């Protein structure tokens, strides 16, 4: 077990290295350069050169890379934004709880809806409830969530002179107000994400229910509820959890539009705006941090498999 953990951690290093190289390269390959963007075509060669020197862009690419990585590894310094000149880590730490809270609430909403409907669908396979459940799930996931979000914000403003858009308040400052603010965006995002969860839940549960040990439980005379909830569900949850793990980057990246429409000062928006402005350090560092989190999260999920299914062997 310990060996497995150590090996997985060791493997994370080359993965992160690869991530850092990819994101560094991608940013440098993007068209336009940040100096020109800052002056939007008004500056002449002299201004642009001075700006580039100021930002450290006149040095060779590999030097810039080494400096960036070096600062992170040796000093924990993730650099400063080209535009605001403020430290990135500080900004990230301030914004991350917002995105995290949104992600957690969204997962909660989507899991609750998805699991419940999925179980019902599986247990009543091919019945009316199954059909209704599956149709609802597909409808939920086929509605573009950005469209739904805009409609939710705009329509009440026209007919009721009210909108769910608020000034953000941190959870630590005022938990009740914070939850009020997060409720609508989490619902909008969560409903659309419930679809895939429901379908995975349904198919995983169907698979499990066909297994030998379930038939044994049946023959022992246990009630349907006990069988489904106590025995089958544990194993059926594995693919669901792995799906959530796989989709974690989606919650961080996909939250951009939700954060933009609902005025939530999260990491998604920070990242997206930096991308648009060619703010290399922000994009690189934020991406690296998120990638590290995702790798860590996947490791945690893999470990949780041991909990849920003792049959899994590690090679």
């Amino acid at each position: 077990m310990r060996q497995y953990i150590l090996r997985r951690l060791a493997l994370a290093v080359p993965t992160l290295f690869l991530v850092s190289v990819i994101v560094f390269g991608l940013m440098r390959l993007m068209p336009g350069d940040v100096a020109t963007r800052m002056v939007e075509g008004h500056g002449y060669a002299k201004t642009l050169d001075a700006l580039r020197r100021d930002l450290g862009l006149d040095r060779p690419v590999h030097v810039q890379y080494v400096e960036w990585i070096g600062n992170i590894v040796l000093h924990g310094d993730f650099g400063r934004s080209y535009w605001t000149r403020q430290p990135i880590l500080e900004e990230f730490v301030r914004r991350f709880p917002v995105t995290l809270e949104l992600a957690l609430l969204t997962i909660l909403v989507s899991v609750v809806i998805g699991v419940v409907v999925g179980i019902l669908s599986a247990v009543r396979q091919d019945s009316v409830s199954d059909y209704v459940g599956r149709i609802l799930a597909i409808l939920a996931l086929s509605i573009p969530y950005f469209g739904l979000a805009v409609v939710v914000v705009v329509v009440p403003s026209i007919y009721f002179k009210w909108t769910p858009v608020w000034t953000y308040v941190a959870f630590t400052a005022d938990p009740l107000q914070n939850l009020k603010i997060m409720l609508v965006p989490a619902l909008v995002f969560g409903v659309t994400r419930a679809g895939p969860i429901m379908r995975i839940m349904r198919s995983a549960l169907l698979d499990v229910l066909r297994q030998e040990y379930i038939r044994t439980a049946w023959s022992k005379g246990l009630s349907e509820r006990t069988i489904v909830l106590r025995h089958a569900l544990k194993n059926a949850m594995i693919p669901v959890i792995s799906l959530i793990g796989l989709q974690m980057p989606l919650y961080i990246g996909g939250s951009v539009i939700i954060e933009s429409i609902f005025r939530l000062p999260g990491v998604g928006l920070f990242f997206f705006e930096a991308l648009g402005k060619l703010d290399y350090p922000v994009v690189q560092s934020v991406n690296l941090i998120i990638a590290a989190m995702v790798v860590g999260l996947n490791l945690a999920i893999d470990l949780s498999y041991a909990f849920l299914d003792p049959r899994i062997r590690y090679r």
Partner: protein
Amino acid sequence: MHRRLALALFLPLVLALATQAAEAQTPKRGGVLRIAEREAPGLDPHLTISFLSHSYVSLTYSQLVRFPNGPEQKHPADFSILPDLAEKWTVSKDGKVYTFALRKGVRFHNKPPVNGREVTAEDVKYSLERFAAKSGFNTRFEPVGAIEAVDRHTVRITLKEPYAPFLNHLANPSFCVILPREAEEKFKDFNHPDAVIGTGPFVMKSYEKGVKVVFERNPDYFMKGLPYLDGVVIEITPDAAARVAVLRAGKADLPHIWGWVSPEEGKALQKTNPEMVVTPHQVIGQGFIYMRTDQPPFNDVRVRRAVSLAIDRKAWNEALLFGEGCVDSGPVPCALKEWKLDAAKIDPARAKYLTGYDPAEAKKLLAEAGQAKGFTTPIFHWPGYVVPWRSYYELAAENLGKIGITAELKPEEYGKYISTTALGKYEKMAMGPSTPFTEVDDFLYGRFYPELPTNQSRVADAELSKMLLAQRREMDPKKRKQIVDDIQRYLADKAYYVYVPQWPQYVAHPPAVKGFLHHDGYGLGMRLVYTWFDR
């Protein structure tokens, strides 16, 4: 006797009415104005040219001179020069030496490390030199030779040659704000919210990134009794639809840094919220089709004239802009009334190439130019500009198709567009709006003088260049206007750029907001000085 009685009865009535009218007009102090807007990319006015950044900090900074606002302005494009930190100024006879006398006793905001000390000529020198060194707009200071602080309250600027646009550029809040050196020494630049220390009507109290920016009235502001507002809060709202939604829901007083909404949103607001004040204004914006006039086929003026005649500007205006746009939008925009020579006043044989629609003649011209079979051209553009533009590109392509020019729309990513195409590095044809400028020089010299990056059509016309330099050096406004008129007459039939209809900008706010008058300059601070709440 009767007359005296009548007067005795009449007079109090008149007085009562007069007082009531006066009361309705007297601005009340108090209230916090809430503006829904996107986040500014930075706060240092010299390190970015984003209008958002400049508008944000225009609440906190002053300049040497400024444009009129509120009750001071004759109309939204009134670019007269008013004193700001400079009480008065003189210009030498040869137009090369400007001497400014600063107000005495003006203090910076009481924030460390500046702590409310007095503004001096050294601060002006420092700020203007920093502008000339760092700003993306510093080409406007090219003719500036030397800036000296003659004494504590006198600044002298010596130019290399007479330069008519100089005072206009000094007055523009995008560039020449007066900054305290200590803040840069402590914070390395002016991006940190604690470094935003100026002499303006509002003090930046706090900046919660991504959430809101809070400003409070400057108690020591040198314009006595102003501002009326207790404070201003910018509620950071990245999404455009959300900004209008919060306006409707009463959670914001302005849906944009200058209160702008698109023509369609404006019309919709008038229907759904009839109490909302929605006012259209002609703005100094301009948009056009630009072409590589240094290469075939667009080096042939007949081809360019054909392109201009193919565009059905009136139909675009009626269909897309509710007929409220300005069709005659170039080379000087409609809103710049002081300099504009209307197409109607130009010889019709030439003016038709500026605003006319005649596809038959367009085809004839193409044939004369040897392009009877038509040709193919790309139209490079950025698809992300505001709504009428998205339709403009497709309509242009269709209009050109009708005279035999096959236009292929080539959208580009923003970074690529503004660093290549918008700087004149493209093939054949491109299309898009231009930055609004406050000085007519930018629309003429900037647009038509060879080798400038803002000369997107790569115009190189020797006779024109002579006129452009002349208007720039002419210090007498009447004589300058004559040269500018000549330039407009000259350009009417050259079709170096094909101008498209410019739409009015709608300003929307609730009825309680008073005194918020649109002005085409970029600043927000001075507009808010005269704004007040009626409740």
